[in-house]
Structures are given as structure tokens and as C-alpha cells.
């Protein structure tokens, strides 16, 4: 076989042509990539080098293993194959380029090494088939919110071309040499041409040109995600449900961190975030995907900024981040932008009132902090004051459970159940303040710190072994954003009590129901099984909704949304979508484990005209029912 680099074409040796092309294309690639790096360096710093072992593990699972790609149908294996084909073809390319530019090197071309050629040929064929599947998905069964841009089409075409040109080349080579690896032989038999040696050269150059062009084009296309996304995963968030470290917020490029800007570059515009987003799906202006696009434009020097309506529509449910294959952090970006808006005082009146009430009275209801424990007055026993006597469990009740008249009966039920189970518990009475989870996610970091200080003062004075919360939002922030607190959700406590026999149901409920995983219990803290075990122990037959466990669909109250005006453009509220989903299962009961879920779904049942068909019950209410003596 002739060496493509030493062959002359119209008098010019191949290696000279390669040198020119390499300088131009690789040069363009490096120059443009360096520009991106320089831009990222203008942004704020952020340490993403901690727990390097864990990071490498995530890299292995989600980059090398393409973990999240398997969550949607049909595309998992194809994309994995395309990815690995790419890894090997990239290796092959640089190898060929180097050898071509320096033909005197005593090294064979990659396709002359049997092992490499074998992998390239097999992966090549599989990748071509995968591209076919991907194309069918993209063009015939287009998932919602997937961008079918010319850029994407061009990229897919280039990939197809580089694969096919290589495979054809191998076919021609097999004809010339009279033998080859199995795949090459099959291809070679199909290609009956007069001078296969020339065809081989032609394919070799077509392949190299395609890749060189691809390389130069890459930093300008959305396929930049190829380069950037491995870094996105490697430098990604290690725990779900977090927010950026305290900052004054961001609206301009330099105010974001490099990792936040990187989101724009890693985004492949696949639309998984939009498909999952309750704000987007209910018709509000927020599209997490477009938010990443804003960042991309910002990094490229554009002026596009997210509008306040987009920024305020988010419920901070973290579905977007849970689905994103490249570990983009949409919520972090939103919280940063909210901080900037709050800093300017640009908050809507309802939210302002809620924040002022939280600041003044420690709750968003505008009621006196002294009224926080009024719900206990109707109990037949006195709830211990954890500020005055030691208790085993310090029960952090939360705003909604304490103040909302629709929830107070359930809170009393909880107290009764704890009492019946012999749990030694107490509350902080007026010493408790809103834990601050949603205050933080609204962008009022200063107020969050103030609430945390006050709560820690009260908690610090109390003597207890563990904290238990009614509300998953409180759970999340007490557990992850306060100082080393040992805190469980009441479903976890119930699970323990049932397993150790301290709580013994007197009857099996014989109920068929579905269970809604709260965002801050499930996605943010991974607690899916404890509530299910509790329901099983009560004799509840569980029918899962399609969107369950980590795919659970937010009720729409989080991220401070419950304190704001309805976002513009809402066609179907997230809570309405959810109760319809529950009703469609044919069950009559939707079980919840979060106070806000309870009221949101009760309201939604009315507005979705499902009254009489579906009822919402808190886990605690079912426990109380099961504890009643058997008839």
C-alpha cells in the first residue's frame, strides 16, 4: 500500500499538504479553545478539585459509561457506541496525522496495526448503525425540546462521513492486499472498482479532511460539548440539591463562576432538562435549556441575558440537574441570578412581603412568632419544651405545619402518633424559625444566614440526640446547610419505629394508593424507600405513578414559588398535572410526606375537578388510621 504522506499529488508530497492543513485546522481549534479558556478565567473562582476520588468515579460512570443516556428509550446503547467509536477514532486520527506529518517515524499507521484496525472497524460499523438509530430518533420521532438545528445535522453528517470514509478505505485496502479483517473483507467485496489503491488513498484523504474540518469547526458548534462535558462531569456537583457558596449574585459574565459559565459550553441542547421541568411544562417563560443557551452566548461575547420572569419561575426541584447527562447546574445559575435581583431589590410585592415577614416574625405567614406553637393547644397532652428540658428527639416542625390551618390537624396527628409510639420528643416553641431552605433558593442569602444563626442558637441551647422534621425542605437545609446536625425525616423515624416494633399497626389498611416522592426528600436526599416501607407495613398496596422516585414531578411550591405571584403563561399548574397523573392510575388516594404537597394537591384536586375521585393523605394520617384498634 502506498503511504499517503509520501505520495505526491501534482508534484506536492502528502506530508506537506498535511502540514498546511494541520497548521490551519489545529491552529483554529487551539485558538478558539484558548479563547474559551481565557473567558472562563475572567469569571470567579470555585474549588471543584475536592474529593478527587469520588470525581473520578463519577467520570467513569457518567462519561465513560454514559450513565444518564440510558434513562431515555433507544438512545442509550447507540450513544455509548458513538462515544467509544469517537474515542478510538480520535486516537486513530491523531496517530495518523502525526505519522503523516512525520513519515520518517518508525511507526505504522493505525490501520496497519491489526488490533487497532479491528476495533476501529467493528466500532465503526456499530457506530454507523447507532447513527442511523439516532437519526431516526432525531428526525422521525423527535423528542420534545430537542433542537434539530443545521449545526446538529452537519455534525451528524460529518461523523457519518468520517466513519464511512474510514470503513470504505479499509474495504479498498482489503481488495488491494487481497486479505483483511472480517469487516473490511465484507466491505471490500461490496466495492468492485478498477483501482482500489487509488480509492484507498482517496478515502484516506477524505477521512483526514473530514476530521480536520470537524476539528476546526468543533469549537464553533454545539458539539463543543464533546470537549467540555467530560470536564463538566469531572468538576460537577458531588451532592444533589445544593446551591452556590455565598455570593452577591451574578448578572454579568465576571460575576458567575467558571463552573457556571462552563454549563453553557457543556450543553448539548438535548432538551432533557426542559422535558423534566415543571415550570417549563406548565407554560411559564422558563426553559432550563435556554438558560444554558444564554450562558453559552454570554461566553461567546453576546449580550443575551435571562429575563426576570424566567429566573423567578423555577421551583428548584432539581429535576433538570438530575437528568442532565453532562451534569449542568441549572439551579445554581438561577440562584446566582436571583441573588443579583434581590440585591437590587427587584422582587415582586408578594415575595417582598414574605421576606419581610420571615425577617420579622421568622415565618412567611405574617403571624407572630409567639403563635408558632398554638397548634399544640388542642392536644390532650403537653408537648415538651426542648428549650427547657432534654428530649431524645427535637422535632423541628416547620412553618407550614405550624401555621397553616389546613395542616395543623395533621401536625397534631403527628404529635399523637409520636406520643403513642413512646417517642420522647419536644419542640422549640417560639424559638423555631423558618429553616431557610427556600429563602436561600430565592436568593436572599443574608436572610438565610440570619435565620440559620437564630435557629442554631435555639438548637444549641436544647439538649437532644436527634432532630426529626415534618417538612422535607427543612430536612434538606438542616441536614446539608447547617452545622453537623443529625436529622431525619419523620418517614425515616416511622420506618425505624415500625421495624423495631415500637409502633405496631393494629390493622392492615387494605388501601390501594400512590405515593408522591417530595423533591427534597427524594431527589435531594435520596430517601425513597423508607416511606415505601412504612406504607407497606401499614398494608397499603402501592401503585407507582410513571413519574416516580427520582423522576417525581414537583408540586410547584418550592423555590419560593409559593410566596410569589403565579408565573405568567401558566396553562396547567404542575400540581394539577400531578393529580391528573395520580387519578389516571385509578387509585383514590394520593399519599404525601410533605406539608406543602398536601395543600398544593388539595387545591389542585379542586381546580382540576377531581373532587370525589382523588383524595390526598399524609403518611401520618394513614399511620394514625392503622393504629386504631382493630374493629
Amino acid at each position, binding site marked *: 500500500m502506498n503511504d499517503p504522506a509520501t505520495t505526491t499529488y501534482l508534484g506536492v508530497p502528502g506530508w506537506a499538504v498535511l502540514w498546511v492543513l494541520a497548521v490551519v485546522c489545529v491552529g483554529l481549534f487551539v485558538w478558539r479553545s484558548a479563547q474559551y479558556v481565557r473567558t472562563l478565567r475572567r469569571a470567579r473562582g470555585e474549588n471543584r478539585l475536592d474529593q478527587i476520588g469520588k470525581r473520578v468515579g463519577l467520570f467513569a460512570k457518567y462519561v465513560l459509561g454514559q450513565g444518564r443516556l440510558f434513562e431515555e428509550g433507544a438512545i442509550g446503547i447507540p450513544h455509548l457506541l458513538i462515544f467509544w467509536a469517537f474515542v478510538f477514532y480520535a486516537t486513530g486520527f491523531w496517530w495518523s496525522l502525526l505519522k503523516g506529518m512525520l513519515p520518517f517515524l518508525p511507526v505504522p499507521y493505525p490501520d496497519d496495526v491489526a488490533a487497532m484496525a479491528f476495533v476501529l472497524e467493528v466500532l465503526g460499523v456499530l457506530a454507523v448503525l447507532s447513527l442511523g438509530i439516532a437519526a431516526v430518533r432525531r428526525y422521525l420521532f423527535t423528542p420534545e425540546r430537542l433542537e434539530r438545528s443545521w449545526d446538529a445535522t452537519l455534525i451528524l453528517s460529518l461523523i457519518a462521513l468520517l466513519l464511512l470514509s474510514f470503513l470504505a478505505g479499509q474495504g479498498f485496502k482489503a481488495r488491494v492486499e487481497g486479505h483483511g479483517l472480517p469487516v473490511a473483507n465484507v466491505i471490500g467485496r461490496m466495492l468492485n472498482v478498477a483501482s482500489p489503491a487509488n480509492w484507498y488513498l482517496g478515502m484516506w484523504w477524505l477521512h483526514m479532511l473530514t476530521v480536520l474540518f470537524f476539528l476546526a469547526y468543533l469549537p464553533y458548534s454545539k458539539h463543543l460539548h464533546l470537549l467540555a462535558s467530560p470536564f463538566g462531569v469531572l468538576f460537577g456537583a458531588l451532592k444533589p440539591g445544593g446551591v452556590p457558596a455565598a455570593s*452577591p449574585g451574578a448578572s454579568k459574565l465576571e460575576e458567575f463562576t467558571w463552573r457556571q459559565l462552563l454549563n453553557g459550553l457543556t450543553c448539548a441542547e438535548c432538551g432533557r432538562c426542559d422535558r423534566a421541568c415543571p415550570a417549563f411544562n406548565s407554560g411559564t417563560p422558563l426553559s432550563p435549556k435556554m438558560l444554558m443557551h444564554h450562558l453559552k452566548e454570554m461566553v461567546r461575547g453576546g449580550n443575551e441575558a435571562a429575563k426576570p420572569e424566567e429566573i423567578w419561575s423555577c421551583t428548584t426541584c432539581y429535576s433538570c440537574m438530575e437528568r442532565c447527562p453532562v451534569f449542568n447546574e441549572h439551579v445554581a445559575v438561577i440562584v446566582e441570578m436571583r441573588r443579583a435581583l*434581590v*440585591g437590587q*431589590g427587584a*422582587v415582586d*410585592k408578594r415575595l*417582598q412581603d414574605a*421576606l*419581610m415577614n420571615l*425577617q*420579622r*416574625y421568622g415565618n412567611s405567614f*405574617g*403571624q*407572630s412568632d*409567639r403563635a408558632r406553637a398554638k397548634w399544640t393547644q388542642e392536644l390532650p397532652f403537653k408537648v415538651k419544651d426542648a428549650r427547657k428540658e432534654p428530649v431524645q428527639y427535637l422535632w423541628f416542625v416547620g412553618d407550614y405545619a405550624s401555621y397553616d390551618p389546613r395542616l395543623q390537624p395533621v401536625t397534631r396527628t403527628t404529635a399523637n402518633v409520636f406520643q403513642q409510639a413512646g417517642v420522647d420528643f419536644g419542640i422549640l416553641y417560639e424559638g423555631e424559625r423558618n429553616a431557610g431552605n427556600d429563602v436561600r433558593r430565592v436568593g*436572599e*442569602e*443574608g*436572610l438565610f*444566614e*440570619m435565620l440559620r444563626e437564630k435557629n442554631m442558637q435555639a438548637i444549641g441551647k436544647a439538649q437532644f440526640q436527634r432532630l426529626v422534621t415534618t417538612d422535607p425542605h427543612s430536612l434538606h437545609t438542616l441536614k446539608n446547610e447547617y452545622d453537623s446536625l443529625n436529622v431525619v425525616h419523620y418517614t425515616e423515624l416511622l420506618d425505624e419505629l415500625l421495624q423495631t416494633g415500637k409502633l405496631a399497626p393494629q390493622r392492615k389498611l387494605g388501601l390501594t394508593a400512590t405515593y408522591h416522592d417530595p423533591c427534597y426528600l427524594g431527589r435531594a436526599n435520596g430517601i425513597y424507600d423508607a416511606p415505601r416501607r412504612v406504607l407497606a407495613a401499614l398494608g397499603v398496596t402501592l401503585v407507582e405513578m410513571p413519574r416516580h422516585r427520582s423522576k417525581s414531578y414537583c408540586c410547584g411550591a418550592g423555590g419560593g414559588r409559593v410566596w410569589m405571584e403565579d408565573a405568567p403563561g401558566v396553562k396547567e399548574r404542575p400540581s394539577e398535572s400531578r393529580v391528573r397523573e395520580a387519578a389516571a392510575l385509578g387509585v383514590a388516594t394520593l399519599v404525601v410526606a410533605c406539608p406543602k404537597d398536601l395543600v398544593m394537591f388539595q387545591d389542585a384536586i379542586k381546580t382540576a375537578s377531581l373532587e370525589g375521585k382523588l383524595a390526598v393523605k399524609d403518611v401520618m394520617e394513614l399511620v394514625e388510621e392503622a393504629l386504631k384498634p382493630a374493629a
Partner: protein
Amino acid sequence: MNILVLLKMVPDVVEELEVGPDGKSLDTSFLRTILNERDDHALEQALLLKDRLGGKITVLALDAPDMDDVLFTALAKGADRAVKITGAPEGLTTHGAARLCAQAIAGGPGLLPADLVLTGVQALDDLDGLAAPLLAQQLGFAYVGVVTGVTADGPNATVIKEYAGGVRGEFAVRLPAVLGVQAAEKPPRYVPVAKVRAVMKAQKIETVPAPAEAGAALVEVRQMAKPVVSSHAEMLEGSPEEIAGKLCELLAKRGLL
């Protein structure tokens, strides 16, 4: 523009209010105080004027519990100076406090000359007078009350005053003037906690000692009590549907349906 804003704390009616053992005054043991809502609007109106026309805002108040937080918040919102009058006698009525503040303004460090003095048109603990007209009279300034809008232009201000029925009146006021503010042109702005805390570290509240003579109370409170409710609504109970049914019956009987 040199603007003074006079602030005062009033009992927070979100809390339960009890009458003290003397039967004539509030029980202070559980009392919480909050900035008079009308004064908050006065401050906002001053800030809007400063945003539009430039100038300086000085907030002024008698020392009281939680007053410092309010003054720092005012500074964080954009006021330039905060002055607290310390050492005033306890239990001053509106009349006494206003006379004292007027003297402090007249004699105080660099408070005058002022173009505008803004304060709330009334407060829920006024018993013997309104602060704004009292100040106006003491300082010899012009006065308009129930103000919902102000613009200034040189030696004059154009002031909007509310009447009833949604009707408002526009007045030309020769400065300096005291305005009793009912509502600012926009709701009071939000200032983040972080900003207030930063101001607490970076800025100081000036103090001036209270002038010796305070005004007397011009009223005598003989008794204070929870209102005797002469009538109370007949309460309807039940589920929303049951209540709706009962109401419909009621309305039908009266020929209102």
C-alpha cells in the same frame, strides 16, 4: 434637595395587645414595636425624590427599642444620615414627641436648612395630635397632609393629596414644607438583609441629646380596653358547599337572587 424623614415606632398589631394593670395603657411586657407604616411610606417617597432629583436624606427618630435596626435599614435603602434623639422622657404622646423633635431639628447639627420634612400623616397610637402639622407649625413650614405624590422643582413642590371617592388634589407648595405622607408613589422598596448588615458595620447612627423641654400630653387617658363588641356576625359553619347552600337560602329569602 435636603430631605428630613421623621420615623417612629408603634405597637405591632400583629401581636396580641393587652391592657396593662393600670387599665389605661398598653401592657408592655409582651409588646413588640414596628415602624409606623405611614413613616415607611414617607421614607420611600423621600428615596424616590432622591432617585429622581438627587439630594440628601436624613432620617431622624426618638430613641426607642428596635429603632436602631430601622435606622440602619433606612441607611441601607439609601438615606445618607441617621440621627437618633436620646434621653427623651418616657411615655411621650404625639404632641410631646413632635415638639421635642421640632426643637431637635431646629437646634440640631446640620439638620436645617431642609427643603422637605416627610413623615407619616398619622400613626395608630396618635391620641392628642398629628406629628406632621405639629412640626410644620413649630418650624414655620408649609403643610399638606394625606399626601400620595410629590415632585419638586426649585423653590416649589407639586404635591398630590387624597380626598375621598378616589379624587385627588394637586397643590403647589412653597418650600420648605412638612408633608404628612399617606402613601408613597411606589410600595416601600426591599433591601436585602446582607446590605443592612453591611451598613451596620460600615456606618454609624449619630445621636443628639433630647432638648430639655418636651411638650406635655394634651389628653388624659381615663381607660383603655378591648372594644366592646356591640354586634357580631352570625357565623355559618360547615363545608364550603354547605355554607354556600345556607348563604343562598339567606339571599333568596331577601330577594337578592
